[in-house]
């Protein structure tokens, strides 16, 4: 038990001689440094306690002489102790301070700001086992082949292994060959790209109020290719931060600069573009600091960092590196690199010398109160820019990956380690500063960092970790070990943690045989519940993709910042607002509801059941387990699944309609495959609508209203001052308003998912049988399909239905105005007669749904 306290409470009273880094620095940081630290604005009484010079100058600390050190007197003052607010120091803390001062008050540098030192010992297992031995613990045995196969595949590729790679390994146990095949598979790049895209705050929209679409997916594809090609991490860094400044770059390299073009663009009315350009630059600095150096530089934008070595001025010196790009929060997201006739992407472009901006320190971070001008430069606490490095973004990128940089390699290997073990050697992956959490295995971190720095070879690093005995251990844990090391900080067992959001989904699709192997290209829209996208001043619809695009890997799903894909959000995926260094895993009922009930998961269950029945008609339960977990069920497990199947079948025998639904899930889901035109618009054969141009008063939207005195005419309605051949006006309308009515007959089983394709440059509202179905709709380009709202969807009845529309001129419309409506909907599912064996098959769908929800299924073990 003693060692747990040792870890959790930083040794505390157990230590003989206090260690500055372990015991004193955190204490000073917590209690003193906010007012007596590096921030000159906040500094009280001119005293700083974070440096030896500062603390000794004022005799706050007299080295070797606690009794005469004023610090001790102040913190233990009976009536007005320091700190003036918050709890006073405990007796233990005071005694620690005294011992440290008596021992000479030695200040050492924060570990992470010292370059890594090559330790004695050359393997992961050496350092892990040495520490285990210290705690009289032994490693766990190696996990069995099936477990290891699934673990390595999900970790390295994010999807279950292909049978072609799996079978030989299960047979011969050649793990290295198996790992090599995973690292060489195209899915490897997709897995690690998604992880990188969290850091890049990648999304397919601009953010803020309108959150319009933007095309930056070629950057996403660049990252996938970079991982698959095993681009060295230093080159990977330099291209993303400064390919536009790097000599001899290709078009492809320029795409990499999309990394920092993932900042948001605000197109809301009246915004000052400079304000949001400034916000984007700060985001880039904060993101760069976190991603490469585990530094919270964002803190220094308003004032000198309270704990870490970055002054207010230095923040703006870094700002100066990033301040010279041409992007300026323009709605067009310029500069845009055109790749093909249909593909373009956002890139960085350095301003020419004569157009370069001056950078000034912003008082309290406010861009409206600029202070002194500063030149580009790196923080003084770190190494200088490399000798030949230019004083621009390129030089800054080179500085990040310089061998002198104490942090980049450590931070990077730690992140890879964390994705493979669930937690980093430094748990606070985003903060290696003095407020972060120190490494559990400092020497191992340094070893991996130093070796990684030699060639920046990511695949080699991953392989090294995955091939270690530490990684291969079984994750089963005894209550005893769990008590001793609940968070597995000592690695006496393999890691066991919930799969990432994307892996949970992709695994289900893969097991069902649905997952598309198609790579790259524009984002896709798999099935999503209706009504999730309701964005202000932006009528974008979620238009479900066709064919295999419905089943692409999750990283190709369209990412809208203000309305992310819901099942991903439920499993802790970020929405691309800000750089997310690590996802915090939660365990919630919403996750249970998602994997139990989300129709997309049900579709996977149905296909999975079909596959198992086809491949193993005698023993589908066994096959279900193998497809999902890569192992056969135990006897008890198989028996429990069979019981569930029998119980369900018995119930379903009396429910033919449910049987039919369970067996036709794809058809239930993709209503767009059964879309029919109910009212053709001007393009598809215009129909006559009843119309008037003056307000018809009350009740005109209702079914019973008598419109027999109204005029009649087809679309297009409107007028043009100049002839317009593509939009032929059939019914003249040149007043401010237009009121339309149309009667349609519907069958006994009414269609669903009504949409109105409409061409307009006005505003309009729609009612169905008197119920408001579309409200305050604005112009979109061409005939745009507006989904009716929920009330409108539900208002349709068998028999006679009235569609009523009110159109109102928007603005002056001096060149003309136009309106043309139509109506489309999805037809109901055709009835089929259930066969006698169908209840049994449908019951297997239910069993498959259960298997997809097992704890083991959503867990990497």
């Amino acid at each position, binding site marked *: 038990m003693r060692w747990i306290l040792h870890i959790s409470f930083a040794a505390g009273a157990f230590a003989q001689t206090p260690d500055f880094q372990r015991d004193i620095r955190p204490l000073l940081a917590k209690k003193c440094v906010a007012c007596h630290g590096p921030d000159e604005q906040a500094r009280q009484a001119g005293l700083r306690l974070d440096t030896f010079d500062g603390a000794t100058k004022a005799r706050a600390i007299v080295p070797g002489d606690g009794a005469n050190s004023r610090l001790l007197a102040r913190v233990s003052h009976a009536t007005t102790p320091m700190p003036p607010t918050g709890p006073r120091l405990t007796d233990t803390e005071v005694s620690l301070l005294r011992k440290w001062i008596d021992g000479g008050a030695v200040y050492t540098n924060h570990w992470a700001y010292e370059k890594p030192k090559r330790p004695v010992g050359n393997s992961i297992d050496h350092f892990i086992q040495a520490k285990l031995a210290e705690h009289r613990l032994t490693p766990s045995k190696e996990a069995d082949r099936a477990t290891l196969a699934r673990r390595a595949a999900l970790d390295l590729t994010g999807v279950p292994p292909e049978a072609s790679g799996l079978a030989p390994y299960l047979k011969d146990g050649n793990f290295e060959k198996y790992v090599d095949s995973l690292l060489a598979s195209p899915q490897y790049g997709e897995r690690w790209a998604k992880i990188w895209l969290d850091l890049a705050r990648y999304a397919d929209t601009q953010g803020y109020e309108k959150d319009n679409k933007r095309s930056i997916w070629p950057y996403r594809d660049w990252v996938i290719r970079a991982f698959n090609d095993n681009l060295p991490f230093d080159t990977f860094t330099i291209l993303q931060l400064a390919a536009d400044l790097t000599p001899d770059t290709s078009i492809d390299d320029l795409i990499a600069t999309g990394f920092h073009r993932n900042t948001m663009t605000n197109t809301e009315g009246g915004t000052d573009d400079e304000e949001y350009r400034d916000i984007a630059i700060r985001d880039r600095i904060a993101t760069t600091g976190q991603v490469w150096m585990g530094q919270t530089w964002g803190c220094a934008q308003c004032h000198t960092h309270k704990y870490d070595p970055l002054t207010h001025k230095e923040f703006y010196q870094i700002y100066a590196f990033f301040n010279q790009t041409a992007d300026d929060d323009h709605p067009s997201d310029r500069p845009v690199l055109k790749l093909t006739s249909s593909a373009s992407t956002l890139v960085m472009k350095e301003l020419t010398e004569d157009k370069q901006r001056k950078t000034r320190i912003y008082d309290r971070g406010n861009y409206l109160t600029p202070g002194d001008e500063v030149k580009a430069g790196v923080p003084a606490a770190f190494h200088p820019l490399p000798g030949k490095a230019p004083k621009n973004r390129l030089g800054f990128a080179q500085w990040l990956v310089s061998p002198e940089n104490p942090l980049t390699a450590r931070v990077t290997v730690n992140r890879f380690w964390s994705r493979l073990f669930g937690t980093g050697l430094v748990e606070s992956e985003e903060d290696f500063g003095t*407020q972060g959490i120190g490494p559990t295995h400092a020497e191992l971190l340094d070893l991996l960092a130093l070796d990684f720095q030699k060639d920046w070879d990511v695949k080699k690093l991953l392989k090294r970790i995955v091939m270690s005995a530490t990684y291969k251990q079984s994750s089963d844990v005894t*209550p005893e070990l769990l008590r001793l090391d609940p968070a597995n900080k000592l690695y006496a067992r393999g890691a066991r943690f919930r799969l990432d959001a994307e892996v949970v989904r992709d695994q289900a699709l893969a097991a069902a045989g649905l997952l598309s192997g198609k790579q790259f290209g524009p984002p896709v829209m798999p099935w999503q519940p209706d009504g999730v996208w309701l964005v202000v001043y932006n009528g974008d619809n979620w238009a479900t993709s066709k064919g295999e695009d419905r089943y692409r890997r999750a990283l190709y799903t369209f990412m809208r910042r203000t309305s992310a894909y819901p099942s991903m*959000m439920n499993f802790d995926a970020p929405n691309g607002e800000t750089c997310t260094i690590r996802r915090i895993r939660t365990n919630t009922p919403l996750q249970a509801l998602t994997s139990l009930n989300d129709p997309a998961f049900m579709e996977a269950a149905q296909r999975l059941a079909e596959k198992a029945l086809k491949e193993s008609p005698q023993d589908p339960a066994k096959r279900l387990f193998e497809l999902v977990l890569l192992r056969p069920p135990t006897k*008890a497990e198989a028996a429990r699944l069979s019981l569930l199947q029998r119980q369900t079948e018995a119930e379903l025998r009396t429910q033919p309609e449910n049987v039919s639904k369970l067996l036709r899930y794809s058809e239930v889901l993709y209503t767009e495959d059964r879309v029919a035109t109910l009212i053709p618009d001007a393009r598809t054969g215009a129909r006559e609508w009843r119309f008037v141009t003056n307000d018809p008063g009350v009740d005109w939207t209702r079914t019973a209203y008598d419109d027999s005195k109204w005029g009649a005419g087809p679309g297009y309605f409107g007028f043009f001052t100049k002839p317009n051949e593509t939009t032929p006006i059939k019914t003249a309308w040149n007043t401010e308003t237009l009121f339309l009515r149309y009667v349609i007959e519907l069958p006994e089983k009414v269609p669903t998912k009504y949409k109105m394709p409409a061409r307009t440059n006005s505003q309009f509202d729609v009612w169905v049988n008197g119920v408001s179905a579309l409200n305050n709709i604005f112009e979109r380009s061409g005939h745009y399909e507006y989904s009716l709202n929920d009330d409108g969807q539900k208002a349709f009845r068998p028999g006679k239905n009235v569609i009523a529309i009110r159109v109102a001129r928007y603005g002056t419309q001096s060149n003309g105005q136009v309106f043309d409506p139509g109506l489309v909907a999805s037809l109901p599912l055709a009835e089929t007669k259930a066969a006698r064996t169908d209840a049994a098959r449908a019951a297997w769908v239910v069993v498959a749904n259960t298997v997809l929800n097992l*704890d*083991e299924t959503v*867990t990497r073990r």
Partner: protein
Amino acid sequence: MNERMQKALAETRRHFLSGCGIGLANMFLAEAQPKKPHHTPKAKSVIFLHMAGSPSQLELFDYKPELVKYNGKPCPDELLKGKRFAFIKGVPKMLGTPYKFKQHGQSGAWVSELMPHFSTVVDDVTIVRSMSTDQFNHAPAQLFVQTGNPRFGFASMGAWATYGLGTENQDLPGFVVLTSGGNNPDAGKSLWGSAFLPSVFQGVHCRSHGDPVLFLSDPEGMTRSVRRKTLDALKDLNVMQAKQAGDPETEARMEQYELAYRMQISVPKVMDISREPEAVHSAYGTEPGKTSLANNCLLARRLVENGVRFVQIYDWGWDHHGTSKRDDIQYALQPHIKTADQAVTALLKDLKQRGLLDQTLVVWGGEFGRTPMRENRGGAEGAFIGRDHHPYAYTMWMAGGGMKKGLNYGETDEIGYYVTKDKMTPRDLQATILHQIGLDPHKLHYPYLGLNQRLIGPTDEGRVMRDLLA
């Protein structure tokens, strides 16, 4: 599960609760358990009625007869110099309200004729006419009110409240979001996000149609009884796994599935307003099955009644610029305030009558105010009348939950342009709300990126507004 494992699990939970930052396994359970507040709370729940788009204080609460006198006169230079507006160009004209105001109740609160219902409850309400923000665009201003920062990436007030206090009802989410008006608010779901707080604290968006919570209903073709059978099987299989693997997370997941199953019953039940008596429907103006502010007001009452900690209502469509009939302060504002006035007042009366108002803090307002000038989009007045975004002065009100009854707080100048007395900011509002539910706004924090993140931001400018407290 054997006793030792139970113990291990309990230990993991304690570990999390003690804030060591590991063992997040049982987050939902941790949340589900009510936590100890910093001090004795005045309010158990909060209902925040956010009128997205920002209703005009000059048409509703802030009576400015002088402005009426200036109606149609060009706006003086000094009010325009150095100012940025969303749409106003050049020199706009002053715009007096077309509506009549009267004083009401013991408190003598000035309220516009547009709110005949609200006028009857002014003696239960604290009206703050001196709100002032520094954001003049919807998304940043909404984010500032709700997350304490005008940018994306910060945790919302409801997330902070549930992080700080947990929830009272284990079968319902602690933080529920209801939207109406045809659109989500401008800043989207980030307004109820958890950002750096664990995602378990994010608001659960309950929809008034279809599943109130996404994926709440059993999939098509699966009956309740079959679902129960699958959960029983799942439990048995997970127990086998737990025995083998020994991971307390498995046990935690099993509990989440049971909670999900209970939510499938409890959420639709609380969201179903159809069984409310007719008198309630006519008071609120509710129509079961509709998406409306009225329905959401009634739902809010039902939710707090059932122990939901934070109910956040967004009603979209208060952005009355006057570019067309649709956003004109006569044609559009009138019908909108008519239904809102009825519903919101009914909510206050209903809470009071049930004895819930004292323990429920109700907050009403937009993200900023509207200009005393008439908007002239494109540099010229159109046929319709409206006002641009105005951050310097606007009105909000609070009721119940330990607020003073019948207080008129703060003043603006004679045309309602600037606050002249008792300025209150969104930070003050946040500090006050947290304080009323028993949390110290200065202490409530979460360490992230080297900083103790707080709803009220890193500085201490946010004040608990003691003058407003009973």
